[in-house]
């Protein structure tokens, strides 16, 4: 059974005061997330990531399609006891202390009274807020609020955790801690679904990612599969300072550093380039595939979308 099944979920808002006009926030989205995965939901600002999360949390209602989490409908209270959610830029009841806030959320999540305090204490320690347990949230920094947000999302030991921009507002150490936490959740068999536009985080963490742009899904898969779908390049280094004239037609970039020349050629031209260098009697030092990063893939994908949108309009 998939942890999250999204079946053609779509959302159109009515905007305007007098003359209402439809604004599509999410086109029919089909997506499956397997149990135990860390799944990254990527897209630029305004792509539809938060709308999708709000639909899954039952905060807004879909105009079409449906979704199931752990095999249950998204508004099933039984299912909601098994999920955790961290909203984007979370804001909490600032008149409560961190301890009181987590206690309140534990009550709402149905955590039994005897283990409530123990769980709250453990969770405050886990996110590094044990010393601020009795401090009112109105005195918390943005980073501390984000930590409380993460604590409330996993406090009740949910099976599926949804994070909306979890790294937002965190310093490099905080980001590292969140990454470690997500990996720990995965080791515990939890499913983590998180949205982000920080691609390096997604690349290092995710088993699979989906890319969304202007409410439309652009691609889904493992990071390696997505990036390998882009035609690769190869870096060739050789001794010398001259570039054979016949090689110039094959290379994209070529420059000399000291007594070494570096050339980057398309993968399809790799053999032809090596043959040329051998014919010229040049000593090849290395031939290394140049890996396409998720960021590069992402930017290319978005450019293709922009061009397609330009043509259709």
């Amino acid at each position: 059974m998939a942890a999250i099944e999204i079946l053609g979920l779509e959302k159109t808002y009515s905007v305007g005061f007098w003359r209402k006009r439809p604004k599509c926030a999410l086109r029919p989205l089909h997506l499956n997330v397997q149990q135990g995965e860390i799944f990254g939901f990527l897209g630029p600002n305004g792509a539809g990531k938060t709308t999708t999360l709000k639909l899954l949390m039952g905060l807004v209602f879909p105009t079409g399609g449906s979704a199931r989490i752990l095999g249950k409908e998204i508004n099933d209270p039984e299912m909601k006891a098994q999920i955790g959610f961290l909203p984007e830029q979370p804001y909490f009841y600032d008149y409560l202390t961190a301890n009181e806030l987590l206690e309140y959320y534990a009550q709402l999540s149905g955590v039994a009274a005897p283990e409530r305090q123990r769980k709250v204490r453990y969770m405050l320690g886990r996110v590094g807020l044990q010393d601020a347990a009795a401090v009112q949230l109105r005195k918390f920094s943005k980073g501390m609020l984000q930590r409380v947000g993460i604590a409330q999302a996993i406090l009740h030991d949910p099976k599926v955790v949804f994070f909306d921009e979890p790294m937002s507002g965190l310093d490099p150490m905080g980001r590292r801690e969140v990454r470690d936490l997500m990996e720990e959740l995965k080791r515990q068999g939890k499913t983590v679904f998180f949205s982000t536009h920080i691609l390096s985080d997604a690349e290092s963490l995710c088993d699979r990612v989906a890319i969304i742009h202007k409410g439309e899904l652009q691609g889904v898969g493992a990071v390696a599969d997505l990036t390998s779908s882009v035609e690769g390049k190869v870096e060739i280094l050789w001794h010398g300072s001259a570039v054979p004239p016949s090689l110039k037609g094959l290379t994209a970039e070529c420059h000399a550093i000291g007594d070494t020349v570096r050339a980057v050629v398309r993968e399809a031209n790799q053999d032809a380039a090596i043959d040329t260098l051998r014919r010229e009697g040049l000593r090849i030092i290395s031939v290394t595939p140049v890996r396409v990063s998720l960021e590069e893939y992402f930017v290319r994908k978005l450019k293709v979308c922009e061009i397609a949108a330009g043509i259709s309009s």
Partner: protein
Amino acid sequence: MSARVVHIAANTFREAVRDRVLYNLIAFALLMSAAAVLVGQISIGIERLVVVNLGLTAVSLFGVVIAAIIGISLVSKEIEKRTLYTVLSRPVHRWEFIVGKFLGLAGTLVVNTFFMAVGVFAALLYVGHGFQSGDGWIVVALYFIILQFVVMTALALLFSSFSSPLLSAVFAFSLFVIGSFAEDLRGFAGMAQGLSRWLATAAAYLVPNLSSLNIISSVAHQQPVSTQLIFSNTLYALMYTGMALCGAVLVFERRNLK
């Protein structure tokens, strides 16, 4: 009742206390102290009447202002600050949230009224040098005032579930004023003819009949209150509150939290 409703109500009460809502009691205490001292000097023989009238009217106005101002922001503030997201993503039904919020504010008003009632009785004790047998009816008047608060809280919550805080405030205070003259409106409806009779009757029964819940003047004159009135007012207030809450739940159940 669901335990989650109780937790939400308790948190709403805590919010009101920490946001210093009960500080109004200081203003009320000052008002009652000043009234008790001044009344003894400027009114001869009717000190008790003035203290009861002034005290209960102040209890009513303080409470209605709190019910309306906090009531209209109960839902809108949670949506605006997005605190609702982490509540409704848990196994909490939307109706539980509305009912919990309502009970929390109603509980705050009951506690507030209790302390103000203590103030009224203390002032009465000061000016009258003791209680009289008819003073017991003041408790019934206070009970009716609490029923007014309950109705106003439910109405404020209803408006808050679909409207902006400013419009909700306008609606709530308008209904309070019109509701305070509901008996007059019903009298007017009885005298009107044709379409205006139909419209006035509809309006008279639609607005909360707060005037029947106001017995301040009669208890100030130590007139007894019939058991039938207590029963009918209780039933009326509970039914009106129930309908307003149902309306709030129906609206909120369908609302997109953008």
